[in-house]
């Protein structure tokens, strides 16, 4: 019975619609468990100029290749009014590879300079229609989605990036200009819903 329910849940997530550009940030009050030991919400993270939500985890090879750029982006834009958070929605692994202890260790090893929090019930992932990691959602200061997708066009190497999708989107947002590429795609690991 549990198996059938899980299958139905996965099916519904796979076919649930991803948040459209222009949509409002959902579940801003949903309480997340941060590695600092504090409970926080997207409302707490929200920046003066915009908010960046990164669905991530500890073990996905694509996350591991890309996460150096999480730090670079946070370094470049946190002080410019962009609120940043990495959200781990892999509830099925909260007792294993994505436990709070493992997340604390992972953040420490990779120099995370932003909150990294568990999403109880994977509620944010459901609300965003997020299905994989890493996956990026950028909101403007009115909490409307302005960009979603990948960080850039090269997971393998920051040095070989040709298209800096996310940085370009944030720069345009801060300059009050239109974001030319509002969505992008990349391969990624499935979010491990319970």
């Amino acid at each position, binding site marked *: 019975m549990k198996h059938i329910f899980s299958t139905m849940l*996965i099916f519904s997530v*796979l076919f649930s619609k*991803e948040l459209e550009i222009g949509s409002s940030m959902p579940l801003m009050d949903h309480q997340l468990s941060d590695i600092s030991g504090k409970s926080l919400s997207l409302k707490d993270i929200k920046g003066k100029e915009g908010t960046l939500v990164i669905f991530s985890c500890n073990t*996905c*090879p694509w996350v591991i*290749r890309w996460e150096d750029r999480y730090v670079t982006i946070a370094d470049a834009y946190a002080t410019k009014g962009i609120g940043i958070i990495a959200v781990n929605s892999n509830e099925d692994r909260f007792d294993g590879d994505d436990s709070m202890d493992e997340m604390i260790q992972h953040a420490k090893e990779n120099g995370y300079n932003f909150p990294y929090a568990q999403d109880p019930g994977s509620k944010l992932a459901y609300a965003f229609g997020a*299905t*994989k990691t890493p996956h990026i959602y950028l909101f403007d200061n009115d909490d409307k989605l302005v960009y979603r997708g*990948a960080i850039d*066009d*090269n*997971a*393998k190497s920051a040095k070989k990036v040709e298209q800096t999708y996310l940085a370009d989107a944030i720069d345009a947002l801060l300059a009050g200009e239109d974001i030319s590429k509002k969505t*992008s*795609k*990349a*391969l*990624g*690991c*499935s979010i491990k819903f319970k």
Partner: protein
Amino acid sequence: MRNSFLQLFFSIFIFFPGCSKVDLAVSDSKGILEYVSSLKGEKAVLLNVWATWCVPCVEEFPMIVELGKEIEELDVVFISADFEEQTDAVYSFLKKKGVGGKSFMKEEKDETFINGLHPEWSGLLPFTILYGKNSGKIVDFWEGKETETKFRESIKLAITQ
């Protein structure tokens, strides 16, 4: 286009002594689709994008291999999305699972590769497409792991189209 042909032409075939059954080529999406087109009129094609680290991919993998062996009118084409340094691991995995047909490793930027195979694919793995035997057109596709029943239903459809 020219680049795609060249890439296919110069695809790196990796053969290990005594293991000539595994035929693993590096290619972009165009090269892969050209291979799929070459089977039009001969066989239905099941294209499955997977990776060694992808748990749901690995879980459904043996079932797909068995379907390929069982159904004569079906050609199964596995495409690994692993990074190039995992080539040996990919080769070993294919060999261990008894994959004898043509397989590929992705050599293209993610977004171009994803949209090249199917514009409605989000990039989530595994990803499966079925091409009709006679039409050569896409009959069905889905992302994520699926049941054997679903695979059999779509294969049946692909063989009749």
